[in-house]
């Protein structure tokens, strides 16, 4: 089997927003995303984990260039997309028209708030068909048929009736299914799922995730799953990128990361997760458990976790980069004095055993 090429590669991406200047001090631009690199292979699920404001949504929105500019600004970086027709292209250099043919067609996105992400004044059907007629040369009748099939694919009963309904007539879970149907109607190669289950009930969450897994297997698309829910990560992800304060602090396969977290923040995050069947008086906070492991690979120095990183140097310090500290594991750190290492782009073609994941 030839070495598969990544579908999407984000290299050293930095996005900033204008910050509010303190009195008497000049305004520092807030780095919402800084030195973010990641890669995605066809059929792979990459989970981007982090708390609110850690830059994971901005990273995903940047792929589709949906960050409003201004106020946002792309400072650095490349977003390489493997396009069938054009070969590998940098999405950040595409013009608006070229981007439009990518959006919704090759890369689709679903959002956190199914309540507000659908236009309240148009029927569900017309909103899905809008995407289809835009990207495919089909007649109205064909588009209608595709819409119906898309709705049936996401498990909506009686799609012919449903597509005449307005978003407010549907429940939250239904709306998220509609969002997924809309995203998948044009059979994209990559789905950006920005906290797709956060706003939903727990039972519905499980259904939606199950649905996404099923659709991923059927259509073979890649998913970038943005979430702050470690349970969702453990169940769905192949590769995990942990983000804090706009930077990726650890990157590796899901088994590795859950098994042996190396970055203090990842350790704190995982330790703060309740474990079923294990009685604890009080869960440790992220800060409590954010320790530097004693067996941290030699030659690298990792900065301790701080809650409010320096506004200019950023999280982990000015010199911190992603280094592959052990094979298949990237951690935000600096090489120890006297050691020589070059930061590398995280590329990890790992896919968990799908049978095990879905059984």
């Amino acid at each position, binding site marked *: 089997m030839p070495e598969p090429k990544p579908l999407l590669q984000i290299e050293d991406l930095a996005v900033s927003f204008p910050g509010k200047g303190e009195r008497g001090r000049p305004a520092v631009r807030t780095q919402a995303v800084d030195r973010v690199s990641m890669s995605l292979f066809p059929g792979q699920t990459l989970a981007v984990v982090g708390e609110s404001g850690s830059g994971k949504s901005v990273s995903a929105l940047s792929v*589709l260039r*949906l960050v409003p500019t201004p106020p946002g600004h792309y400072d650095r970086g490349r977003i390489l997309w493997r396009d069938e027709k054009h070969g590998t292209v940098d999405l950040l250099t595409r013009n608006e028209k070229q*981007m439009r043919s990518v*959006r919704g*067609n090759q890369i689709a996105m679903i959002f956190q708030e199914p309540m*507000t992400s659908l*236009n*309240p004044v148009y029927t569900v059907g017309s909103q899905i068909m*809008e995407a289809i007629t835009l990207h495919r040369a089909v007649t109205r009748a064909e588009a209608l048929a595709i819409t119906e099939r898309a709705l049936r694919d996401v498990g909506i009963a009686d799609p012919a009736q449903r597509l005449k309904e307005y978003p407010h007539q549907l429940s939250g879970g239904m709306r998220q299914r509609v969002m997924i149907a*809309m995203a998948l109607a044009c059979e994209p190669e990559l789905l950006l799922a920005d906290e797709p289950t956060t706003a939903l009930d727990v039972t519905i969450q499980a259904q939606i995730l199950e649905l996404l897994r099923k659709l991923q297997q059927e259509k073979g698309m890649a998913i970038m799953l943005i979430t702050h829910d470690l349970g969702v990560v453990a169940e769905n992800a192949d590769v995990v990128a942990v983000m804090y304060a706009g930077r990726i602090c650890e990157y590796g396969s899901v088994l590795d990361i859950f098994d042996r977290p190396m970055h203090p923040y990842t350790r704190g995050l995982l330790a703060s997760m309740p474990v079923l069947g294990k009685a604890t008086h009080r869960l440790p906070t992220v800060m409590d458990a954010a320790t530097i492991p004693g067996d941290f690979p030699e030659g690298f120095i990792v900065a301790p976790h701080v809650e409010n990183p320096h506004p200019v140097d950023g999280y982990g310090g000015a010199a911190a980069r992603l280094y592959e500290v052990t094979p298949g594991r990237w951690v935000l750190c600096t090489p120890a004095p006297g050691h020589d290492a070059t930061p590398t782009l995280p590329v990890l073609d790992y896919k968990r055993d799908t049978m095990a994941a879905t059984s």
Partner: protein
Amino acid sequence: MTAYILRRTLLMLPTLLGMTAVVFFIMAAAPGSVAELLISSDGEMRAGDRQARIDYIKERYGLDDPAPVQYLRWLHKVSPVGVFTDSTDDRVAGYGLRVGTDPQGVATRLGLKTPDLGHSFIKNRPVTDILAETLPITLLLNLLSVPLVYVIAIFSGVYAARHRGGWFDVASSSSMLALWSVPTIWAGVLLQGFLANESYISMFPTSGLHGLRAGEMRFLPMWGDGGFAPGWLLDTAWHLVLPVVCLSYGSFAFMSKLTRSAVLENMHADFVRTARAKGLPDRVVLWQHTLRNSLLPLITMGAFIIPGMLGGSVIVEYIFGIPGMGKLMIEAIEFKDQEVVMAVTLMGGVLTLIAYLVADLCYAIADPRVSYE
């Protein structure tokens, strides 16, 4: 849908009654009785006229009855449903069931009748006839202004929101407030004084709705023997320019600001992001997704613009000498012609409530979340 309209209309009846009652009781509370007011307004009246007036008032309101009774009598006269006799006047005949006979032996009926708005003393004509002449003129002014306001406001508001922070936005956001603050009386006086005055630019006619020779004109403009003849249509349009501008600029400024903020609010809505993520071009995102949702507050405001415009017509018609309902109102108020005041209030109320109903229906159509139930 029909049931909805019907229910809304019924809900509006109390409001309409309230409006006429408020106006009636203000007039009733004024110093001097109704009859006194009418009689004292001109002293040189002939003895016969005087008696005729007293009789008229007595018949219509009951001279010595308390104000609420007088109001109910008036209400009965103008109501399209009630008791009436066949004989008194052709104007008040209608269809109904015979319920008895009056002392003169004339049949009394209960049912639908022609509403009787009374008789105006300043014009010495039935109020219904006067309204039939003046109402269309005011309606014409307003019906020209409202679409104008909406169309320009939507385009300028959308443009400002789209180029937020641009020169147009910065210039318009402060100048719209200024425009909104310009008093209609000032704008009217200045427009008339500078643009319709022979000592300055005599571009527009000073007053009225038609030129002097409008009666002889052809309808459409044409080239005749004596050069260009504007024709009736163009002549009237020319007379309407300044009044319509005067009537609409305030609402336009207000609506434009409203459009801008509504569009800005929706531009960052989640569903707009979804639409962009679908790959829709900006044009479609703006006009179909953003604007459609931004229209809702504009529709709501429509119901409130109409009363303002009716008030504005009073000023505009006064300044530009247009023989519409507003000018009639001023004359009637000046000479305390109670019948006309009540009739105009009633018409104003009906128009406002119709506008409210239409706005309500438009909203229900534009926003699927509103149900007819």
